[in-house]
């Protein structure tokens, strides 16, 4: 039995410790917001947070995730109101949308560590997230907007 804490909820699953976390999230637990892209950590579609870091769940084994704090796109905010989600909506970032849960989870780590990123910081943070629709200019725009929203949110508190 493996215990996972996902979006602050405990889950106990019967699975091989070598199973990729992505498989457990989607097939055993039913959290299908995280996507399978390449399966070899090349595209970023499967990014989730493991203890706050933007890991690729397709190559992260359950043995590494067990007992750790996992956050998926479903848990990024309570009401889909993370500054990035608001900005993504405002800018209409996605085209097909397949890669965007991974894009958002990576961008969330960037904004947490660097609340006012430059274009270069965005490139440094997001270069591992591939978008075959080529929405990169809108992703960049939305991250800058989210940084502003996050700042205003902080000032309002």
């Amino acid at each position: 039995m493996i215990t996972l804490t996902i979006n602050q909820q405990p889950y106990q699953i019967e699975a091989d410790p070598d199973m990729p976390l992505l498989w457990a999230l989607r097939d055993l637990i039913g959290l299908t917001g995280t996507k399978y892209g390449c399966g070899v950590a090349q595209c970023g579609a499967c990014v989730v947070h493991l203890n706050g870091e933007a890991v690729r769940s397709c190559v992260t084994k359950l043995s590494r995730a067990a007992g750790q704090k996992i956050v998926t796109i479903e848990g990024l905010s309570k009401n889909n109101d993370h500054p990035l989600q608001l900005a993504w909506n405002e800018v209409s970032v996605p085209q097909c949308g397949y890669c965007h849960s991974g894009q958002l989870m990576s961008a969330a780590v960037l904004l947490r560590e660097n609340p006012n990123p430059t274009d270069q910081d965005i490139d440094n943070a997001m270069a591992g997230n591939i978008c075959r629709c080529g929405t990169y200019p809108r992703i960049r725009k939305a991250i800058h907007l989210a940084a502003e929203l996050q700042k205003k949110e902080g000032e309002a508190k």
Partner: protein
Amino acid sequence: MIMSIILTMVGVMAFAWRSGSKKEAMLPLSALPLKKDSIASVKAFEKVYRVLMSPRCMNCHPSGDIPLQGDDSHLHEMFPKRGKDGKGLFAMKCGNCHQPSNTPGKHSPPGNAEWHLPPANMKMVFQGKSAAELAKQLIDPKQNGNKSMKQLLAHSEDGLVRWGWKPGEGRTLPPMSHAEFKKAWETWINNGAYAPKSNQ
């Protein structure tokens, strides 16, 4: 007049001699090799250099801030950056893809729990270094990660160094066994850690 010139010269020479011996006296005894054999040392370093410049070692000791990849040592896809601690930046940290062990499959990430580049304040570059330059760098604590000679000796058994001989599918091994490398490494250091001549 002649006497005063001679006395001045003797004084200058004595001062120079004292400065030199003071510098030598500053070296801790433990830092000095047990024996000195420059020929054996330099010969062993030829082997050491061949290993350190092989892709399994050099790829994580790049001249820039992006690690290298593959047997042709091309820039790592996605251009992950070194970061302050050598473990990457933001959503592009080494451990996000590189797991505690190799991920099976030809094009999947190799892994080790300590996966990282040297930190930004001491990059320990191998790429582009001649044998002479690299040997001098390796024994300088200000350029080798603050390692004493004793720690340098032990470094051949470091987990990330040993990973080089178990790099996972599709990656060539260094040009000799780990045992042969370790022997050459120790021979180089124990015989004085001499650097080859600059043109070698």
